[in-house]
């Protein structure tokens, strides 16, 4: 048993901290993904440090991992500093291409990802396929010398600045739902690709996402990732990774500490808010729950040394999503009516950030794998319980 970082790990963490101290400016902070020139420039610097391709072969532009936990340490520090996070491109795109793509595809895309030369839109969700990704309908026909894609996607976060779309398409309309799905890579400027903004609920300048339309988009044959009709397997692998790698619990820790700091300093009518016993008690309960989040994350890290965490990642995800809402909710309660001030009000505590968090955090409880879905994963994969939607299950059917 060993809970401390090793000397090497601590050294890497300090290096990242020093880098962020030096390079992270106010305009780069906030949000999640790389979406402004300043944020792109910041990630270019991460790339220059070799921190995007850690653990991938050098021939693809990767770099040696300085230490086993480098990826995790980097993510935590980025989250704690509120810097753009880099998990999506490396975690989903590069990993999937590396493990499943053709040699040609690896040569073309991996170096670009690791040099931060391209932005990606993950294009999965459809009007009728949300949590149930296997129901997706976006049609992809083999036209001999190209693929022809037709369909509509929703909630595509980065579509308005992406260079490529990473699209889940249906390549076999007759196969069982999840057996006819493939992944293709599409140029963002392909003819027939259009999008329109979908604004998230939130203040002006809130997160943007997009509805995307593929209208007879031609895609070269070599842009199909891995094997045809195996896309669903790739998606599921990536989701496991996503639950664990893209979003570190550190984001919630940062946010909780920020709120607690505000409470500590806040005074109303000459009374210190932190003297209120009800506030003290509620924040102590939540502080404890936040700490449990860091524990579940540490557990994932330890598992990750041996395999991709799956049910552990689901625990992490379910807890983190729940806690995120609890933080925003308690923050607003503590602020009283000031809690609902927003969007540039000079009286809004923490510049109204907690209002945005309250409004948008519900999304984390349903998105990717929401809380209920994560719990279903735990029930099915870890506890060995049968599919609630499946056939009636009796004890003697157990394996």
């Amino acid at each position, binding site marked *: 048993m060993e809970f401390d970082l090793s000397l090497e790990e601590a050294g890497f963490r300090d290096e990242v901290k020093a880098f962020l101290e030096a390079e992270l400016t106010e305009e780069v902070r906030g949000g999640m993904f790389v979406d402004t020139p300043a944020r792109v420039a910041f990630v270019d610097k991460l790339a220059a440090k070799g921190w995007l391709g850690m653990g991938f072969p050098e021939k693809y532009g990767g770099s040696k991992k300085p230490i086993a936990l480098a990826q995790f340490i980097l993510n935590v520090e980025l989250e704690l500093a509120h810097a753009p996070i880099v998990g999506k491109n490396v975690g989903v795109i590069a990993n999937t291409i590396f493990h499943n793509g053709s040699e040609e595809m690896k040569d073309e895309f991996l170096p670009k990802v690791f040099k931060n030369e391209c932005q990606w839109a993950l294009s999965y969700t459809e009007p009728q396929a949300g949590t149930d990704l296997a129901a997706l309908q976006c049609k992809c026909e083999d036209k001999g010398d190209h693929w022809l894609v037709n369909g509509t996607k929703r909630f595509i976060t980065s579509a308005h600045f992406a260079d490529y779309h990473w699209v889940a398409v249906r390549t076999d309309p007759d196969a069982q739902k999840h057996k006819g799905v493939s992944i293709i890579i599409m140029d963002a400027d392909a003819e027939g690709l259009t999008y329109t903004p979908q*604004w998230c*609920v*939130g203040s002006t300048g809130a997160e943007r996402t997009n509805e995307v339309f593929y209208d007879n988009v031609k895609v070269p044959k070599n842009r199909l990732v891995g094997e045809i009709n195996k896309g669903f397997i790739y998606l599921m692998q990536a989701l496991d990774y996503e639950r664990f790698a893209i979003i570190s619990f550190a984001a919630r820790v940062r946010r909780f500490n920020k709120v607690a700091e505000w409470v500590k300093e806040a005074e109303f009518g000459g009374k210190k808010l932190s003297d209120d016993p009800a506030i003290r008690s509620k924040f102590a309960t939540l502080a404890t729950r936040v700490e449990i989040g860091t524990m579940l994350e540490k557990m994932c890290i330890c598992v990750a040394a041996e395999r991709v965490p799956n049910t552990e990642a689901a625990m992490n995800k379910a807890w983190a999503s729940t806690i995120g809402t609890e933080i925003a909710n308690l923050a*607003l309660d503590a*602020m009283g009516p*000031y809690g*609902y*001030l927003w969007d540039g009000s000079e009286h809004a505590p923490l510049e109204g950030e907690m209002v945005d968090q309250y409004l948008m955090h519900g999304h984390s409880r349903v998105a990717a794998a*929401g809380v209920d879905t994560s719990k279903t994963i735990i029930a099915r994969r870890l506890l060995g319980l049968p599919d*609630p939607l499946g056939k009636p299950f009796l004890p003697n059917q157990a394996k």
Partner: protein
Amino acid sequence: MDMKYTEEQKQLQDLARRYLEKECTIDFVRNLEKKDEEIGFSKEMWASFAEMGWLGLAIPEEHDGMGWGLVDQAILAMQMGRSICPSPYLSTAVIAAEAIVLGGTDDQKSELLEEIIGGEAVYAFCFQENTREFGPKTVALEAKADGDNYVINGSKMFVEFSKGADKLLVVTRTAGKVGEESGLTMFIMDSDTKGITHTHLPTMARDRQYEVKFENVTVPKSAVLGPVGDGWTILNKVVQKAAVIFSAYCAGTAEVMHEYALEFSKERVQFGRIIGQMQVIQQYLATCTIEIYGARTIVLYTAWHMDQGRDMLDYVAKTKAFTSHCVEHICDRGSQIFGGMGYIEETPTTLHLRRGKQYQLSMGGMAYWEDIVAEKMFGPVTA
């Protein structure tokens, strides 16, 4: 015992439902949310309210009102809550009207109530101070007698519709100090009286709230409403009625959010079946149903008893505390059922999501009212 609406109440409800569903659509509300919109409500709609008799609904017949009760206002307010109707109904037809009925001189009554009934005077209620807490003890805004006048200095926060209102009902302190219930005096004045400035406060609900600053605002003694230094004796009753109507509004918003979510759960297909067939979704929806029935019942129960002239402070407090909790809980849960859709601005229910939490934090939040419940149960804190 009988909870059924009378014929008149049914008609009131149905008319309100029909009118508001037609006029106060989601798009209508969204338009009033826009930043450059200064008034935050529709004068045309306000005129219709007057025409339908809603503004004088609970004003006694002797003052040309309809002479109905708080329970009828609650029935109406639930409908307004369903349409999250942005209007100064609460501050004008409940708070100001009641304060004038209870505290006004004969002259004030005859002059001011008629204006309200006719829709000619919109009121904003200047009560909440620059603090997290609520209630008479927090009032600091200073009004000093000066010959035939009072001079008012200080500020109020979270005043809804103050810029668009014609008049302000202002709660000041003419004696005593912060922390005391006594020493309060109410005034009525024009909202554009010299020395008053309104600064918009952007809110989660995107309604129109203002910080109102008073800088040597000078009003004649005739602007006083009710007893000097003893305003809380009147205001206490007014605030209780306001809390019940606000609760009705919350119950209505919760109710309609739940209907949207239920409808969606019957349409949205995932894994080859409607999501409403999933047991967890059913449990969420059923839990919310119970809360809504409870919320509606306690609103009506409390309002009805107040109409019988009984002291219902304990029930008012429970009504406000429960509906406040409810509206937040149900707007959150409902949004969850919409999945990703629930958090995209274009989805109608994001209006409810933005309001659920704000309502919960408004008018004393839950803490002020739960303190009252505790005091009723245990007496005041002795230590």
